[in-house]
């Protein structure tokens, strides 16, 4: 059969070229052929299985969300709005709230982001713009590998090397926290209560197990994630615009500032927020380093910090039903926070110019 027409074989006469409604045709033949899709039994089975798989996943996910809410309800009923304002964790005494640990979680994540974003931007720019072409795949793999290193490994690294050797070293607690506390202690954020850095016998333990040190460790964990998103976006910057900038006499940094960074802004923001989501939920590294406090601790260099996820890992053994429910409520708050952050990240990435084809 050589001729192809839109009509079936039974409509042998060629279609009239005169345009007119189908009803005008003499034999009442229909207009364009209606396309009917017949699916074989194997297709129907396949579609059924695929739908069932999707439904099963939906069921599991909704179940998790629903159960979290249902099981957290008794605690929320007991505590009410005070759950968000009380700075204590005493479920047996009906006095519990996440104000302190929530602030601590946010502070740790912010410290982590403040450290990891410049680091990740530099690394991503190096990989996509400066690195020799031959070693680029190797670097990409190294960064991805860094993202796959288990969090407990970062945790013991922070606990055994970073804190005692680099940040609060020796009897005097030499390191960045002491320097910050000494020279920037007049800023409330860097103030350390009960510690005088100029006192030679002051114990450096006031500077350990702090929000800042936990933030540094979490920064090491989220930096590769942010790097990988940013690198992906930077490498998609259009070649034509890059060459245009060079042709106008831009240096490499001039090209990066005028082409790559504006193009990748959406990806940079989105990647940062993805990292923020991970930093908010990080448990083990934080648990190993901080000593938990339940009050609001605005001094990030001072011993004692709060974190919702570390609180859950610390108190899950509570035997009372209300204690578990209270932890569930705290977990729900944490989940809602990461959920909002992740959704904003995906919206920012998909709205940006570079994000249409991006993987995240």
């Amino acid at each position, binding site marked *: 059969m050589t001729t192809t027409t839109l009509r079936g074989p039974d409509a042998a006469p060629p279609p009239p070229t005169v345009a007119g409604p189908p009803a005008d045709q003499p034999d009442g033949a229909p207009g364009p052929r209606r396309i009917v899709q017949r699916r074989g039994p194997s297709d129907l089975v396949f*579609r059924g299985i695929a739908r069932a798989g999707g439904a099963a996943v939906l069921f599991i996910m909704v179940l998790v969300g629903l159960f979290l809410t249902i099981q957290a309800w008794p605690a929320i009923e007991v505590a009410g709005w005070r759950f968000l304002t009380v700075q204590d964790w005493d479920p047996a005494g009906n006095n519990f709230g996440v104000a302190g640990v929530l602030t601590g979680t946010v502070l740790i994540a912010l410290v982590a982001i403040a450290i990891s974003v410049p680091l990740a931007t530099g690394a991503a720019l190096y990989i996509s713009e400066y690195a020799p072409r031959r070693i680029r795949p190797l670097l990409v793999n190294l960064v991805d590998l860094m993202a796959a290193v288990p*969090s407990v490994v970062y945790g013991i*690294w922070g606990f055994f090397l970073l804190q005692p050797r680099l940040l609060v070293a020796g009897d005097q607690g030499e390191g960045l926290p002491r320097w910050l506390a000494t020279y920037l202690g007049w800023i409330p954020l860097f103030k350390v209560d009960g510690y005088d850095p100029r006192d030679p016998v002051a114990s450096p333990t006031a500077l350990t197990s702090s929000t800042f040190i936990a933030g540094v460790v979490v920064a090491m964990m989220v930096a590769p994630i942010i790097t990988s998103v940013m690198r992906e976006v930077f490498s998609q910057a259009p070649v034509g615009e890059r060459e245009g900038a060079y042709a106008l006499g831009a240096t490499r940094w001039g090209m990066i500032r005028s082409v790559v960074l504006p193009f990748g802004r959406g990806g940079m923001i989105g990647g940062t927020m993805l990292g923020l989501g991970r930093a908010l939920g990080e448990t083990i590294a934080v648990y190993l380093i901080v000593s938990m406090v339940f009050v609001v601790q605005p001094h990030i260099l001072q011993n004692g910090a709060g974190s919702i996820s570390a609180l859950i890992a610390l108190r899950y053994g509570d035997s009372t039903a209300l204690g578990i429910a209270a932890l569930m409520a705290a977990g729900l708050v944490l989940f809602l926070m990461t959920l909002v952050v992740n959704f904003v990240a995906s919206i920012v990435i998909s709205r940006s110019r570079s994000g249409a084809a991006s993987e995240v």
Partner: protein
Amino acid sequence: MSTSPDLTKAGPAVPGSTVLPAAEPRPDVPERRRVIGRPRRTDGFALAGAAVAGVSLTALLFTRLAPFDGVLGFVVVSYLAFLGFYTLLVSFDESGPTVRDRLAAAVVHSLAALMLLALVVVVVFTLWRGREALVYLNFFADDMGRAGPLQPLSVGGIRHAIIGTLMQIAIALAVTVPLGLVCAVFLSELPGPFSRLVRTIAEAMTALPSVVAGLFVYATVVLALGMGKSGFAASLALGVMMLPIMIRAADVVIRLVPGTLREASLALGASQWRTIWHVVVPTARSGLTTAVILGTARGIGETSPVLLTAGFAAYTNANPTSGPQTSLPLFVFDAVRRPDEAMIARGFGAAAVLMGLVLILFAIARLVGGRAPGQLGRRAARARARASRRDAARFAARARARQAPGVHASDSEVSDA
């Protein structure tokens, strides 16, 4: 009077006419092409000089001039001094934009080096602290059932943790891989309002912190159903955590399969099921494998869900459905918080083993996949080329046989049929 038609005529300058100069004699030696992209020698001098000057100034500051101390401070001050000197040196013979370019390049390079250094330090430090435990063979072949925390490293090991990790991740994968892949195929191949809803929910669940997944399983399976802490509960927690990650990664890979391939298969009369099984899934196979392996690497290293659900045991427990079953990250977490040196060394050894596992998984993922759909590896490309040459030879033989219908025509027709 306009331009004269004979442009090459070199005569007295007539107003309005153009005179071309005679061609210059070619030089004997062909001119060297100037390379302008390469760094020059002065760039290297500026870098080295600034580095030496920065370190020297800082050493002077720290030892003679100011009451500074500390290794970290020394490094930071030398780096800042280096940047200052470098800017100064470059500004002697370059313009403003070039100085800024050089400065930015220096900062970007050092940030990347810092990141790489962090990775190297994390890996090397773990291996270094774990070296004492890793040299003992019983560390891999024995469990802690008869070894107290105070006993030396020649007694006891992490066999129970390795078995626990492998078993828990295997159960989690047995649930999540089929479900995740079917769901990913569903999301990309049967688009509609329902699949949009499923995709939104699955993406939302990637935000679920792993400790909350663990708490959920602890509250439902361990407490409410009364199963007690077990390896099975831990793998459920890992599965809840890994499922959305895997779905998302697989969905991205399947969506990258070119639509033209699908349409070609459908146009040849294949059913939807056959199109997906024979075209879409093989095209995306390497990416799907990568998605699964990277999800596994993520799940194997998670501590917090296991901490809440698996329980801690010192003996080998090969039965995931009853009794506590320790996994590697959990063992690390427990061991490093003990005060004994031997136990801390065991913890670092277990962390090194865990990192080795992740590294192996990662290497497999990179060997198997990581390519875009439709891009072939070297061997696959060669196989395709061979098959294609075979086909071409066959077509040519048939064409020859058709053109010369002789004695051989019937033979070739028979052999082709």
